[in-house]
């Protein structure tokens, strides 16, 4: 739990304490004077940078419960701001808090407006805190913290009047259905002699005031709880009861027990009781303006950043730790598996002692033998191609071959220089011309007794090509060169003075592709 500096300021004194590990320590009481403020400066200077929270027990306080149309966001903020300026124009210490919704059909919002109307009462003390570099977390009216005491008391009464005799007067705080409605500090005489009467009178006045405010009628029963931090209000309790009011006396021991507070501290000042409540739970009705709490906002942001850093560090450590733990487990499993592998390998080595001597592994023996068989059986020889060509030539006696090329590669036989092409390496896998190897060839020949008759020569060549096409082993035949290229795609030049009979040969070239062997 974070350390805090707690300060309760009243008209005649201020009580300070440090909140450490959920307990009050170093309680000190200072006079509300220049000397007291100076002493408090020394006290605050030794508080490090703990945030300070201030409660004020003053007569100059005001409470209003107002019903406003239901709104949210900036609309609500503007409305509240207007109301605060309307009610407490001169006081910088004012606040509003939503306490519920109205039960009417409009379900209006119900706000508690509260203010400290005497800012000068707290300014010297806040100046000391600022001077010492302590961030001010908030300034609250004393009754705001007493809600925690009602919870601790466990009182179920619908109308509860909490009465405490303070050094400056009698503090009376009214709760209806455990919700704060109003509080007042009466500067009555609290000397022992007149105290009983003063308390009873203030209770009666308060009831009249509640009746006037329509907060509780005089007919309604009110339970009085008398807080007696000094154990000196026994007679007062009896007096109240004799006035036909239900009264519960809570003495020092009971208070100390309820709030888990050192009874010795209660003897020091009744304000210790409220400092304990403030330390345990900071109320929502902070009266201090932003300029006062700016340091605390920075403190909170810094603190949140440090908390975020710590959270990130914890997550990082936890995550990394999990990873490293997992890695350790994986390494252990790996070692275990390695041992098992070594055992199995040792068993295997033992078993291989029974094997016949071999130059390589059994798998390699089998694979190499199968590869050799496969290569032998899949070898393609040129016999088939030659037979196809010979069969076709038998029916074309006027044609003689001058060149014959064959290949078994990816792609078809190139139609360039045939002899030079023999030295060309096989195209790499994926080369153009198809993925599978196939048999193809190029035959270069001449038409005998040509005598310049292109028509007849071309007819003979086409007939040879047709015979080849009809062969069941042939997939494709292409005429790549004719004695005369009459294609409209190229230019044709010549002379009519040429004597056709002088040309006695007509060259041609055919590309033949065989079907894949099944």
């Amino acid at each position, binding site marked *: 739990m974070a350390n805090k500096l707690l300060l309760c300021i009243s008209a005649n004194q201020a009580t300070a304490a440090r909140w450490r590990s959920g307990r009050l320590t170093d309680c000190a009481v200072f006079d509300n004077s220049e000397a007291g403020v100076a002493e408090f400066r020394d006290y605050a200077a030794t508080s490090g940078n703990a945030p300070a929270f201030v409660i004020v027990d003053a007569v100059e306080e005001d409470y209003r419960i107002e019903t406003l149309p239901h709104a949210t966001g900036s609309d609500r903020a503007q409305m509240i701001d207007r109301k605060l300026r309307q009610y407490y124009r001169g006081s910088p210490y004012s606040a509003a808090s939503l306490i519920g919704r109205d039960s009417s059909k409009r379900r209006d919002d119900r706000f508690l407006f509260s203010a400290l109307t005497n800012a000068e009462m707290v300014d010297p003390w806040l100046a000391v805190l600022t001077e010492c570099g302590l961030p001010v977390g908030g300034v609250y009216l004393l009754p705001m913290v007493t809600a925690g005491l009602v919870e601790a008391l466990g009182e179920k009464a619908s109308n509860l009047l909490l009465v405490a005799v303070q050094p400056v007067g009698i503090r009376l705080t009214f709760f209806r259905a455990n919700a704060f409605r109003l509080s007042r500090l009466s500067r009555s005489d609290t000397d022992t002699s007149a105290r009983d009467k003063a308390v009873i009178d203030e209770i009666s006045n308060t009831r009249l005031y509640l009746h006037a405010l329509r907060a509780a009628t005089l007919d309604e029963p009110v339970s009085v709880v008398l807080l007696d931090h000094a154990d000196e209000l026994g007679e007062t309790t009896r007096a109240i009861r004799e006035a036909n009011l239900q009264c519960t006396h809570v003495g020092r021991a009971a208070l100390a027990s309820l709030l888990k507070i050192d009874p010795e501290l209660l003897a020091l000042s009744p304000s210790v009781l409220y400092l304990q409540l403030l330390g345990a739970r900071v109320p929502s009705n902070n009266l201090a303006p932003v300029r006062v709490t700016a340091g605390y906002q920075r403190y909170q942001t810094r603190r949140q950043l440090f908390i975020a850093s710590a959270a990130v560090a914890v997550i990082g450590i936890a995550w990394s730790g999990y*990873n490293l733990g997992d890695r350790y487990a*994986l390494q252990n499993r*790996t070692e275990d598996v390695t041992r098992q592998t070594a055992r199995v390998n040792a068993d295997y080595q033992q078993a291989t002692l029974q094997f016949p001597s071999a130059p390589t592994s059994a798998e390699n023996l089998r694979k190499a033998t199968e590869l050799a068989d496969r290569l032998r059986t899949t070898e393609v020889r040129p016999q088939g191609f030659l037979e196809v060509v010979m069969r076709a030539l038998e029916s074309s006696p006027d044609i003689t071959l001058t060149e014959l090329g064959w290949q078994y*590669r990816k792609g078809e036989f190139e139609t360039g220089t045939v002899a030079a092409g023999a030295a060309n390496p096989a195209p790499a896998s994926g080369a153009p011309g198809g993925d599978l190897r196939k048999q193809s060839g190029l035959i270069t020949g001449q038409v005998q007794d040509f005598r310049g008759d292109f028509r007849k020569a071309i007819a003979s060549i086409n007939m040879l090509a047709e015979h080849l096409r009809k062969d069941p082993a042939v997939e494709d035949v292409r005429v790549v060169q004719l004695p005369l290229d009459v294609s409209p795609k190229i230019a044709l030049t010549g002379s009519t003075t040429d004597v056709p009979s002088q040309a006695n040969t007509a060259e041609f070239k055919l590309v033949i592709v065989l079907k894949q062997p099944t």
Partner: protein
Amino acid sequence: MTGAELKALRGPLLVLVLVLAAAGAAIYYSNVLRGQSQTVLVQQQNQLREARTRMQRSGDEKAIIVQYVDKYRQLENSGFIGDEQRINWLAALRNANERTDLFGINYEIAIQQPYPYAADLNPGQISLKQSLMKLDFRILHEGDLLRFFDALRAQNSGLFHLERCVMRRTEDGGPLRYQPNLTAVCQLAWITATPEAPSGARP
């Protein structure tokens, strides 16, 4: 936010950035280490699985060795398995030339390279390589070409595939009976196999 507020928050912001960086680095690094350990474990588990499979198949392995070892030795002797036997190839060329009564053969052997069609054969742990040999010779007729390669094959000096042949009629073909009429330029691939990683071998 004012300059003073920024100044006040500089320290915690710096701490947060440093912690974020350190935590991120620690998580990343530990994650990498964990991933590495996971990979090593998977590899080791695979090795164990393989070892167990090999152990279970040790009986089959023995039978395979008995079945294939003699054929393998023959392939080794023929020059298909192991290093290239280029001297044997040249001797085989000479013998085939003599047996088929050819007129001499010019040869040219290229450097060894991976066999380009190995993937079609699924060779496993066997590395297949080839050396292309270009042959240039003269023949009487196309039948000599086929006889020559049959004779070369019969030398059993390795395993080759004929890839390409071109025959051309010679211009100087005269009236002599045993004068070569054709020139032939052929290319064949001598194929060799090399087993890799002879694990489990017991020579």
